[in-house]
């Protein structure tokens, strides 16, 4: 067997894939072979490294060199310089956003320093299409341990003791859910993996399935053993082709090895997994809607109880867990509940994966221990706010969540703290906003999403959210009144109390939390008709600064409604009543004389 001295890990995640990491991989392989290095250097495609914004990523082991934004054309230089001569290719190294230094080794990157990777332990480390690499990282050992050394009840106890809570949003105790499903009496039961991932901006589930599909398969089998199920179903959205591909490959490999199928590891336990495709509707992530969708019905939710644990897929007891929840399971069994419970806060154990996005320097996928503060996430891992702007808010929990402000920055992130601050964990979307973002518009953005995604079955959600959207729109148009803010509040509470499913019950959260935290901004919009961040176009006023105006007439000539008057070589003025705020004058003025207020 060839003895490799160096491993070149090339990201094969969706983000990097989109920027030609596959061609890069091919180039590297070809050049390595041409140079006769294929016995010493192994080139491997891995899952996402998390640092997708700077992709494609190439990591070289054992010296931990982390190359960013590598194009297929860079392959030759990497091979000739780094692999042969041991000289790092400086221009491809990550540059620290603060001190502009090139960082040669991933251990010194702020992005990775505070992270603790449990669910993402294998992402960017192993080849997801090679079951042996998974096994070499203790893969399937947890399954073997459960099947041969533990009773289902013992496994459930271990899960309960670990304190693992659902990562799909609700945060319900995973061990408890397994226990309830195991106690439901039935000839057939099901394990369902929720890979719908509907939250805008979230991609942690996709990354896990792409980068480490076996961990989810193994966990589903363990769950099956605990609850007495022989069938597993993964509900995954059809627009995740790479994740689907990797999952299929992994399932086939597991079957070949006899780790899925009949008589697993000679214990008589049988378990197999199939895929079910979703069409990408947000509400289909809700577990009852998801089950209906799998049954071939419309993806509409139903009232709980009965919970799926009692009556789910085709009315059989069904245990639904999220992808990230499952990814934690094998580690808990291998390392023990106590180890897991030692990480995190009192009531939220372990880590959480977040998709960090918005006005932040390091956009990407991160995993941190529960209890890490927002400040650490935003400033240390995220590298601070882009372009030196001022931090304004961070939105967590997607359309079901809310936004947190400056005063929350030192709050340790966990389920309960986020709820107490008026937001929530959700599936882990985290969008950072700066001074240029308008909070009313932000609430409107999420309401727009909810209106689109409502299944329409219940009127509070179908009609109520539409009305919320209309009022928000009116405010951003400069036509709102104080009463409108009160209506927003009242309507929000009614929707929360009366909607059928989690979608409607949480959809007013972005409205309520922005009203609470940014009351002044709402008042400015309705009384002063001003938007301080300049996002609400209708509220802006264009002016000409007489100091800078040279009378070139460029603005007047380009104004489509003739709102600008003034002599040639004389100072120009804009008639506010006629102005339609198109911004043409601002664009045309070469002397910085036009400004917005």
């Amino acid at each position: 067997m060839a003895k490799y001295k160096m491993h070149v890990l090339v990201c094969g995640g969706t983000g990097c894939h989109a920027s030609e990491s596959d061609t890069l991989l091919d180039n590297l392989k070809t050049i390595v072979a041409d140079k006769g290095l294929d016995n010493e250097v192994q080139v491997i495609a891995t899952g996402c490294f998390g640092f997708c914004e700077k992709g494609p990523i190439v990591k070289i082991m054992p010296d931990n060199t982390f190359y960013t934004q590598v194009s297929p054309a860079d392959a030759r230089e990497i091979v000739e310089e780094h692999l042969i001569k041991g000289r790092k290719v400086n221009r491809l190294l990550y540059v620290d956003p603060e001190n502009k230094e090139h960082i040669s080794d991933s251990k010194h990157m702020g992005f990775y320093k505070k992270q603790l990777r449990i669910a993402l332990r294998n992402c960017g480390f192993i080849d997801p299409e090679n079951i042996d690499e998974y096994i070499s990282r203790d893969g399937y050992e947890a399954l073997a341990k459960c099947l041969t050394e533990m009773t289902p009840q013992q496994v459930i106890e271990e899960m309960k003791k670990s304190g693992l809570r659902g990562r799909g949003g609700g945060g319900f105790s995973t061990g408890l859910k397994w226990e309830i499903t195991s106690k439901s009496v039935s000839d057939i039961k099901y394990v369902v993996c929720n890979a719908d991932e509907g939250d805008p901006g979230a991609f942690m589930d996709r990354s896990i399935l792409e980068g480490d599909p076996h961990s989810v398969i193994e966990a589903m089998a363990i769950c099956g053993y605990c609850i007495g199920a022989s069938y597993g179903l993964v509900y995954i959205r059809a627009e995740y082709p790479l994740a689907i591909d990797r999952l299929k490959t992994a399932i086939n490999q597991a079957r070949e090895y006899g780790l899925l199928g009949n008589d697993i590891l000679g214990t008589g336990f049988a378990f197999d997994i199939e895929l079910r495709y979703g069409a990408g509707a947000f509400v289909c992530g809700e577990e009852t809607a998801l089950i209906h969708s799998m049954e071939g019905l419309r993806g509409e939710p139903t009232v709980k109880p009965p919970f799926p644990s009692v009556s789910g897929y085709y009315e059989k007891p069904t245990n639904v867990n999220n992808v990230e929840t499952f990814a934690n399971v094998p580690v808990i069994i291998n390392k023990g509940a106590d180890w897991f419970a030692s990480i995190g806060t009192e009531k939220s154990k372990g880590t959480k994966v977040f998709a960090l996005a918005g006005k932040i320097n390091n956009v990407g996928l991160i995993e941190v221990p529960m209890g890490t503060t927002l400040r650490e996430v935003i400033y240390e891992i995220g590298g601070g706010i882009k372009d030196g702007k001022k931090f304004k808010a961070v939105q967590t929990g997607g359309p079901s969540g809310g936004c947190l402000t400056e005063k929350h920055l030192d709050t340790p992130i966990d389920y309960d703290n986020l709820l107490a601050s008026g937001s929530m964990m959700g599936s882990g979307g985290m969008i950072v906003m700066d001074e240029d973002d308008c909070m009313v518009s932000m609430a409107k953005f999420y309401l727009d999403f909810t209106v689109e995604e409502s299944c329409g079955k219940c009127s509070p959600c179908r009609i109520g959210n539409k009305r919320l959207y209309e009022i928000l729109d009116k405010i951003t148009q400069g036509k709102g009144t104080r009463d409108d803010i009160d209506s927003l509040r009242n309507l929000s509470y009614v929707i929360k109390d009366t909607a059928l499913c989690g979608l409607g019950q949480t959809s007013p959260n972005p409205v309520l939390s922005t009203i609470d935290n940014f009351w002044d901004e709402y008042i400015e919009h309705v009384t002063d008709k001003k938007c301080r961040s300049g996002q609400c176009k209708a509220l802006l006023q264009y002016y000409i600064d007489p100091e800078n105006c040279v009378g070139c007439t460029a603005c007047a000539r380009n104004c489509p409604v003739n709102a600008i008057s003034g002599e040639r070589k004389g100072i120009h003025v804009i008639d506010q009543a006629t102005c339609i705020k198109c911004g043409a004058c601002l664009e045309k003025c070469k002397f910085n004389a036009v400004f917005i207020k």
Partner: protein
Amino acid sequence: MGQVKSLADLRKIKEELQGKMSLREKSNNPESLVQVKVAMATCGIASGAKQVMDFFIEEFDKRNIQAVVTQTGCMGYCFAEPTVEVTLPGKEPVVFGYVDTRKADDIIEKYVKNGELVEGIIPVNYETIEKK
């Protein structure tokens, strides 16, 4: 590979891959291991650095010493190639010059195993970026 019938089978696969994966596992935590850097610029390669590097990798494996062997660019001691920098856990790096396989063997037996210094040390005359 056939079916995995038992935990023992699983462990066997794991062991077979250990060598291959250990390169990645170890490099996640290099500070706790012996680190050897072999200068592999043109000057180094020309004077046999490659054989020395291969020797280190194989011998650490054979003698069961947990180590990370990497290559670096020219360290500036072209007169003394092949040069090798050895860092024991918790210690300052030491650079050895004129390292052939015999000398490499000495370095492993004396310095790495017992912390005894061997001939050929080059005083470190540069600072790394991290120290600044």
